């Protein structure tokens, strides 16, 4: 479904991605972990064409999307809940969801809003509140909900659990699983919460300084002692 082949991305002189190869098959949940500054967010944004890959190719649904403008890529069925949530601050919850639904038919709107509210009942209570005044966790839910509104084939999630209470994190991962299994959405997930994210995933990749350094099934990576030492120390297992 998504095939990233030898992608290099630069910010001015800085080479943030140094030839990344990643495959995501239809129906999978794929998790990407890595230290701060490894280039995870850059990779998700490069898939969406901003910044643009300097070299290498990105295929979505067997079509080359490397040079396409961002809005074209989105209209083909990619959605992203980006780093920092990026809620439209002066739009209400409903309006934010409406923005998410921009690339689908208007007729779907009511049903899709209902299913987002079903996943995140808290958003329903806040539906007429302005995005900028939501709490961090509420914004995170809205960011995911907004991404779902476009009925994406591929959902890119950049650290969805960031800043959420442990209870909510658990629920969130259950929701991600639900989206994947019941709505058939393919998910490419970036996480710091390596334990949960790898347990959830069919497969995983590990990035460091702009390169993929390890790949495998979620279970394999979880069992790998190097991963343990680098990303899982500090009691995550118990969570």
């Amino acid at each position, binding site marked *: 479904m998504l095939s990233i082949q030898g992608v290099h991305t630069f910010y001015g002189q800085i080479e943030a991605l140094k030839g990344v190869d990643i495959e995501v098959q239809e129906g999978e949940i794929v998790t990407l972990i890595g230290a701060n500054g490894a280039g995870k967010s850059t990779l998700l944004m490069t898939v*969406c064409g*901003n910044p643009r890959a300097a070299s290498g190719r990105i295929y979505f649904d067997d079509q080359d999307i490397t040079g396409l*403008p*961002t*809005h074209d890529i*989105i*209209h083909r069925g990619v*959605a*992203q809940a*980006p780093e*920092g949530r*990026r809620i*439209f*601050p*002066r*739009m209400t919850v409903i*309006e934010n969801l*409406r*923005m*998410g639904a*921009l*690339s689908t038919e208007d007729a779907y709107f009511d049903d899709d809003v209902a299913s987002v509210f079903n996943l995140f009942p808290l958003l329903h209570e806040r539906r007429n509140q302005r995005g*900028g*005044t939501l709490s961090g966790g509420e914004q995170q839910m809205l960011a995911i909900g*907004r991404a779902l509104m*476009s009925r994406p084939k591929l959902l890119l999630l950049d650290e969805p659990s960031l800043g959420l209470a442990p209870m909510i994190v658990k629920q969130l991962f259950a929701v991600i699983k639900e989206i994947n299994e019941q709505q058939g959405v393919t998910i490419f997930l970036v996480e710091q919460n390596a334990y949960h994210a790898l347990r959830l995933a069919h497969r995983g990749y590990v990035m460091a300084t702009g390169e993929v350094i390890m790949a495998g099934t979620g279970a394999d990576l979880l069992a790998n002692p190097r991963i343990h030492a680098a990303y899982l120390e500090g009691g995550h297992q118990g969570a």
Partner: protein
Amino acid sequence: MAYFTQQLINGLTLGSIYGLIAIGYTMVYGIIGMINFAHGEIYMLGAFIAIITFLLLGLAGVTFVPLVLLLVLILSMAFTAVYGWTLERMAYRPLRGAPRLAPLISAIGMSIFLQNYVQILQGARVKPIQPVLTGGMVLTQTEGFAVTLSYLQLIIIVLTVVLMVAFSLLIGKTKLGRAQRACEQDRAMAALVGVNVDKTIALTFVMGASLAAVAGVMVTLYWGVIDFFIGFLAGLKAFTAAVLGGIGSLPGAMLGGLLIGLIEAFWSSYFSVEYKDVASFSILVLVLIFMPYGLLGRPEIEKV
């Protein structure tokens, strides 16, 4: 009192015209965070296209006044919109991502170019037009002073109100309006939900330009004379109006326009015509000292 009412009517008329131009400044500022310094010239082009259309319609024998007005409005808006679109394509889009000063200067360049372009094509002399719409209604008559509302003033005020309502609905309720607000609030995120940002920005210029065209048509009718330089002062006044109301705010632009119009009308009639501009700009300075974001503007600070 009668005299006061008369000045109120005159001020509202003038203010409507400033307000229509000011909306273009405020919309463009809202979406790209930059002042369109060629917007006054867009308005001037609107006035010239209006005068040319009036002449052509006259030659073609179209004399039914409502039809003439409608055709002039539509054609002027359409052609001016093309200028607005071209302006964005030439002066702004190639410089997207460049330092902020660059598009500012290219817009000033466009402004100078457009003035000279019209001067060369149309000549530097003042262009007069036969009155198209005359007459009016006497509202009150006291002690030999009649308060009149001319049909033209009525049209200007009503048309402005209608356009304001239509634009507020467009921005508040339509897909395009939401896309514009999204670009305004977070351009990269707007693209990430599928908004065609370049197209949305271009359409914003087009909308601003067509409103400026309406102002241009109205001024042509109201004053009966135009020249290639009218964009400068009107642009400056409308810009002042936009800042006074709070740049980026649509109701603010309209309110600012009305205030500037009223200040000018009252100052000219009760004090001195020469100092009317000084009065408007002084009020601007005073408002900005006490309300740095303008009357209806908001500070940029936001919880992210």
